[in-house]
């Protein structure tokens, strides 16, 4: 009896082992495909960071934008791919007790202005029209490359806006507003022209959630610092500088981003949890229904960093080395070296030349040097 039941048991065990091995093979292929499925299809990253308020007491908005700029640069997006729009110059403002700095922490711990800030649109150039032109790409001819958003259909774009806002609008420079409908239409134009692969929109203003209510283009994820009817509050004032340094939501987002490095696998769900109501007083909101992928599969570095897809180059083409030309070019180099004269520096301050030119540039030919000019020719 025992012997009879032994064989079928062995057979089933063998069958089970075989099935497991096949299953693991199939699993690894499925895993590979699944990994591809969840990865974003972008090849480059862009960031458009906008601060819309001017005047000294809106220091915190500039500090917000510069902090996000700094994080984005640290995580890898180069300056050529960042369009930074600051509506006022706080670092060189006459009221800044520490010129050339913009701080984001109390006690002046962190200077976000740094040495290599590259502001593309400054001061009065930050207008609704310029912002929409940057987004849609319809800039006047002759606009320099640093002021253009040269994204293509494989670009992930991060758009961060901060300033004073209300229910359905954002104030630009105290003189004009952009409405949520205009913003949604601008994004639709970007989609029609295939200017983005995925878009992350972050807004830190009062009633910020109203700005993303009207989006209707695909592949947009939006975050806001407060819901409709709520105000976004600032974080803390600094007694030495005299103004509030940052807004709460961006402050906590920044703390979160400081822990991210280019290789981290943190996903968007963690970003949604940043700044709960207890810390932020307002309720941050987010919108993901237009986004195709699940937020838990979206890495933070998909938008904030610039991790590129690479492929190993496995093939080469064969070229024929042209030996005859190589030898003759070597000879040319040697001849060139022999023929060159020894080099010397140009005259740094050719005094005689300057005096001569000043004399020649006298207004009247009959004026003598002693009367009209301050230089005497010795």
């Amino acid at each position, binding site marked *: 009896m025992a012997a009879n039941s032994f064989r079928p048991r062995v057979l089933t065990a063998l069958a089970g082992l075989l099935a497991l091995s096949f299953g693991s093979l199939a699993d690894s292929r499925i895993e590979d495909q699944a990994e*591809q499925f969840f990865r974003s299809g972008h*090849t480059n990253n862009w960031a458009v960071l906008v601060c819309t308020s001017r005047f000294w007491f809106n220091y915190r908005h500039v500090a917000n934008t510069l902090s996000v700029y700094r994080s984005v640069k640290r995580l890898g997006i180069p300056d050529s791919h960042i369009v930074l729009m600051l509506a006022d110059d706080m670092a060189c403002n006459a009221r800044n007790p520490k010129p050339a700095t913009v701080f984001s922490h109390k006690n002046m711990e962190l200077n976000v202005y740094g040495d290599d800030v590259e502001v593309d649109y400054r001061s009065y150039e930050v207008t609704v029209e310029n912002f929409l032109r940057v987004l849609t790409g319809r800039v006047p001819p002759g606009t320099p490359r640093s002021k253009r958003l040269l994204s293509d259909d494989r670009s992930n774009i991060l758009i961060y806006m901060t300033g004073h806002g209300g229910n359905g609008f954002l104030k630009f420079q105290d003189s004009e507003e952009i409405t949520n409908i205009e913003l949604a239409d601008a994004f639709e134009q970007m989609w029609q022209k295939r200017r983005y692969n995925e878009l992350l929109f972050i807004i830190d203003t009062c009633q910020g959630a109203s700005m993303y209510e009207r989006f209707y283009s695909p592949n947009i994820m939006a975050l806001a610092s407060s819901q409709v009817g709520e105000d976004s509050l600032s974080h803390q004032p600094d007694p030495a500088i005299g103004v509030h340094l940052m807004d709460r939501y961006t402050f906590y987002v920044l703390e979160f981003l400081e822990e991210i490095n280019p290789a981290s696998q943190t996903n968007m769900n963690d970003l949604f949890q940043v700044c709960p109501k207890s810390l932020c007083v307002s309720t941050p909101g987010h919108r993901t229904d237009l986004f195709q992928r699940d937020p838990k599969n979206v890495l933070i570095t998909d938008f904030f960093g610039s991790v590129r897809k690479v492929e190993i180059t496995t093939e080469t083409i064969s070229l024929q080395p042209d030996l005859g030309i190589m030898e003759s070019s070597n000879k040319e180099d040697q001849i060139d070296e022999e023929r060159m004269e020894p080099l010397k520096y140009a005259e740094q301050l050719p005094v005689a030349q300057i005096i001569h030119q000043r004399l020649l540039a006298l207004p009247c030919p009959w004026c003598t040097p002693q009367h009209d000019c301050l230089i005497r020719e010795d």
Partner: protein
Amino acid sequence: MAAAGAAATDLEVVRGKRAALFFAAVAIVLGLPLWWKTTETYRAPLPYSQISGLNALQLRLMVPVTVVFTRDSVPLDDQEKLPFTVVHEREIPLKYKMKIKCRFQKAYRRALDHEEEALSLGSVQEAETMLAEPQEQAEGSLTVYVISEHSPLLPQDMMSYIGPKRTAVMRGIMHREAFNIIGRRIIQVAQAMSLTEDVLAAALADHLPEDKWSSDKRRPLKSSLGYEITFSLLNPDPKSHDVHWDIEGAVRRYVQPFLNALSAAGNFSVDSQILYYAMLGVNPRFDPASSSYYLASHSLPHVINPVESRLGSSAASLYPVLNFLLYVPELAHSPLYIQDKDGAPVATNAFHSPRWGGIMVYNVDPKAYNASKLPVRVEVDMVRVMEVFLAQLRLLFGIAQPQLPPKCLFSGPKSEGLMTWELDRLLWARSVENLATATTTLTSLAQLLGKISNIVIKDDVASETTCAPLRRISTRLTSSGSRFGTWIQALSSLKSRSLQPRSGCPSTGGTWTQMLGVLSATSSRLPSSA
């Protein structure tokens, strides 16, 4: 007296009433339409019906194939039937709203005397050079020579040969159904050399619904009017290595011929730079087994970013920039190898990133350290470097290895690095892409203008759209002689213009009249079809 006065005032009143009535009538009849006309928003007329018809376009891509039969290739009674033409049409199965059909028009004929002579030479290469002399083939066309089954021209086990200049050689067969069998083989060869579904799918990648399960290698460069190529030498350790590279000579000898061959795809500008103290962002690991350093494949994506900010290449022009970096590792980390996913060192020691460029690691020969003191003079072997860079450039443009039919001898590219029919394939893909983008732009423009009923449509916008007779173009997408190149340029400039509407329609003497002239000439030669 009183009665006459009363009658006079009555007359006055009546006259007054009549005048008022006439006044009102004139105001309403003339004034109202005048007011209506002068206060309406100016909307220049657009050809909406034509634009909506663009969605239902059918695209037929024609590939003319000339099949030349030598004397002993097919049975005699089949040879009697020559010359004749066979058309093979196939729809490319893509989920795109525009139907694309690929039509191989095979013209069968007998071989001429000089062709017979050429095909009886010793080797295929000699035959090719002799055959190429008389005429220059039209772009997009192919010529297949069918030789006898036991001819010594091809090696014994090979059935066919694909050459670098739009020619192919194939063995015939002595069989009753010779033409059918040969016809099928020809289609195989022609598909390897011209259009396949992959090429078109890559070109139309952003217009197709995203197929997540597909390989994400389909990311060639988008069509553009020009490209900027930058070669950079990164020397992080100038104290140890005094690196010299003859980049000017290498560009002149190897890169410039390649770019000249590719000139139909855009204007290229090449520059180069040397960067000192530029580190990679990743620390290489030491592998004690081979006593060398290696970069694992999962750390490669993080190499590019720290370097990119120092490249400084994109200030000048608006064209996409391709960066090719040659990294000479520092003495402390020499030799440095790149490992692929399985941990094996990569033969080329290079990797590339789609739409960005490529990086190659150049290890200094360890023998150079023995004799002299630091810094060691390093002469970079530009041939090896350019082989890799040009291969990467091909991959970035989407020129991949073709799928060969079985038992096919494949000659590599000529000295330029690019085969003529590969360029044809690229141009096909570009033209389809430009057409798709132009169609999308026009249809979305029409949609937008329809939705917003009181937006002003200025004259320059209207003139841009009426200057685009896309319908006529797309019903006859064919290649004809040297105009193909200018036509591609015209289509790509249409694409760039329609993305940024500017004033001015290309007037007489421009590319459009040339194009229309070409099209009317070719359409008269083609058999009439829908």
